[in-house]
């Protein structure tokens, strides 16, 4: 974004989307100028950061012109009018290639929009293009993309986190005002932490997943990356709510999250689970998160010590359930209805089954194959009870930790990631070590609760640290309120962080 747009959006109280809409309504800037400025930024920065896989200029300008025409006629503008948005490439966009960062969908152009995308556009947002991610959202560093890794705009020799690394980087770098990502085990919150931007995982069922290409259906969520918590509230209000096209979307009323932000946090009880502060958490991360908790207390929140004894089982549980569901969901990629087909076997290897094996074997990347294999094993005859059923029972216990926690507190506060952004290539050799980095995020995924990551300062190397705030099912209002209060405090006291 250009300086002129920066001066509009980084104005009062973090309500950037509202400030932009007002500036467009007053004709101080046009939606087209905003979109042009984003595309210029993308042209400058994308060759080195590898954030966008595809742009949809025509669609963006058509929408921007529509918003400008409304402004010219003096009509009231919709809530996200003119807000430039980046979409993770696992969300379907009609007419724009949607690859899931995989070679098995390299030429796939969906015939329809995901509901979340359609709702953003109906609210006036301008879709800029599709962002890079780990293949089929499987990864924690964005290094599993078939189209190369994204680089962290804060420190380009480092990863942006994953799997929604491109969406986090697009917002952190000012290529877009907001972005959509998906989160199954931390894929919104962790890259938000590593890139230093607010990143919200709504409650399971809060946002329709129609048009999200499924990874793990009992875990997948869609949520926003934004420049501020107030912006996250504005976006959630638009994308949340029942959708007849997704049977798992809940018909729970959608509150006015932005209005709730202003309420004081005095007396809110925040739970601090000791299991999230042990060894394995970098000292720089722990320090910043503890300082943030102290700050929340000074703003009036009441600290309650919690224990969540099943936390240490969450990674094992998650990597059985997520891979089992993935092995089922990804069975649909078979070279018949979409994507390229491989059928180059020898004379005795040309039948239908050989075509499946070859298409999938050649077109899925290593991490996707690893997870399909693990999930297939966990579901196979003779192992189902020992692995899948056992993991489902462990999931009950992990969800129980949250349920009993939320009987005592309004929110649970932890680090988002035990580490700050690591160097590209540093962790790729050992998949298990990469999985273990998800320890603080997979718990909330398994429990179905909501969680946000917000920046809470930098570690000794100047890398962003994320503070995670969990709330109970459909408890987004309280989570956003706490996050907003902390963010406003941080804005006013930059020198201390």
């Amino acid at each position, binding site marked *: 974004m250009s300086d002129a747009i920066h001066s509009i959006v980084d104005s009062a109280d973090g309500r950037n989307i509202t400030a932009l809409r007002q500036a467009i309504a007053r004709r101080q800037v046009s939606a087209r100028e905003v979109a042009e400025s984003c595309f210029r930024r993308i042209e400058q920065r994308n060759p080195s950061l590898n954030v966008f896989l595809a742009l949809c200029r025509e669609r963006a300008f058509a929408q921007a012109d529509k918003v400008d025409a409304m402004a010219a006629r003096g009509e009231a503008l919709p809530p996200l009018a003119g807000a430039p948005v980046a979409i993770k490439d696992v969300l379907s966009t009609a007419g724009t290639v949607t690859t899931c960062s995989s070679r098995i969908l390299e030429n796939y152009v969906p015939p329809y929009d995901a509901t979340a995308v359609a709702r953003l556009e109906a609210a006036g947002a301008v879709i800029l293009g599709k962002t890079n991610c780990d293949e089929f959202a499987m990864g924690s560093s964005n290094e599993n993309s078939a189209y190369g890794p994204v680089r962290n705009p804060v420190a380009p020799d480092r990863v942006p986190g994953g799997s929604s690394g491109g969406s986090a980087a697009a917002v952190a770098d000012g290529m877009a005002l907001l972005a959509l990502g998906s989160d199954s085990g931390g894929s919104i919150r962790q890259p938000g932490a590593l890139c230093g931007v607010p990143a919200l995982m709504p409650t399971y*069922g809060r946002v329709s997943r129609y048009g999200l290409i499924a990874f793990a259906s009992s875990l997948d969520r869609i949520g926003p990356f934004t420049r501020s918590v107030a912006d996250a509230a504005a976006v959630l209000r638009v994308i949340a709510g029942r959708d007849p096209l997704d049977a798992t979307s809940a018909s729970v009323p959608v509150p006015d999250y932005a209005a709730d932000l202003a309420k004081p946090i005095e007396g809110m009880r925040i739970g601090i689970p000791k299991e999230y502060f042990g060894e394995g958490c970098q000292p720089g991360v722990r320090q910043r998160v503890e300082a943030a908790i102290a700050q929340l207390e000074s703003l009036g929140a009441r600290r309650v010590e919690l224990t969540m004894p099943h936390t240490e089982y969450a990674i094992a549980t998650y990597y059985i359930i997520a891979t089992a569901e993935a092995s089922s969901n990804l069975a649909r990629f078979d070279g018949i209805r*979409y994507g390229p087909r491989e059928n180059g076997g020898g004379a005795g290897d040309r039948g*239908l089954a050989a075509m499946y094996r070859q298409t*999938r074997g050649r077109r899925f990347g290593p991490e996707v194959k690893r997870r399909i*294999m693990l999930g297939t094993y966990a579901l196979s005859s003779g192992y189902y009870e020992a692995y899948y*059923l056992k993991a489902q029972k462990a999931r009950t*216990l992990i969800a129980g930790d949250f349920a009993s926690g939320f009987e005592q507190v309004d929110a649970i506060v932890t680090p988002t990631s035990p580490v700050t952004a690591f160097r590209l290539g540093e962790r790729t050799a050992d998949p298990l070590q990469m999985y273990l980095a998800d320890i603080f995020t997979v718990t909330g995924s398994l*429990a179905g609760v909501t969680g946000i990551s917000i920046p809470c300062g930098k570690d000794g190397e100047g890398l962003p640290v994320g503070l995670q705030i969990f709330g109970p*099912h*459909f408890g987004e209002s309280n989570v956003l309120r706490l996050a907003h209060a902390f963010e406003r405090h941080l804005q006013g006291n930059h020198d201390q962080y």
Partner: protein
Amino acid sequence: MKLTREQVARIAELAHLDLSAAEADSLARQLGDILGYIEKLNQLDTSATEPLAQVLARNADPAASLRADDPVPQGTAAKIFPIAPDAVQPYFRVPKVVDKGE
């Protein structure tokens, strides 16, 4: 813990995945490591625990979760066939499934 080559081949067959010898070897080791870690779950006594298959909150109205089964024309067929690797409307064409022994 390491999976055997036969175990890896069997899972790959179930998953419809062609694997190179090098891929199969590294998967035998990596899956073994991961499954070894997952053994951790056996420390948990789950004899009295129900499995959790989905987390849709209880306060989400279950009656509303399924829409009426009314067919609505989507009009997407014309858009779907052109993106298939081998289609002759209204069919997707696939390699030969049945060997007639010719």
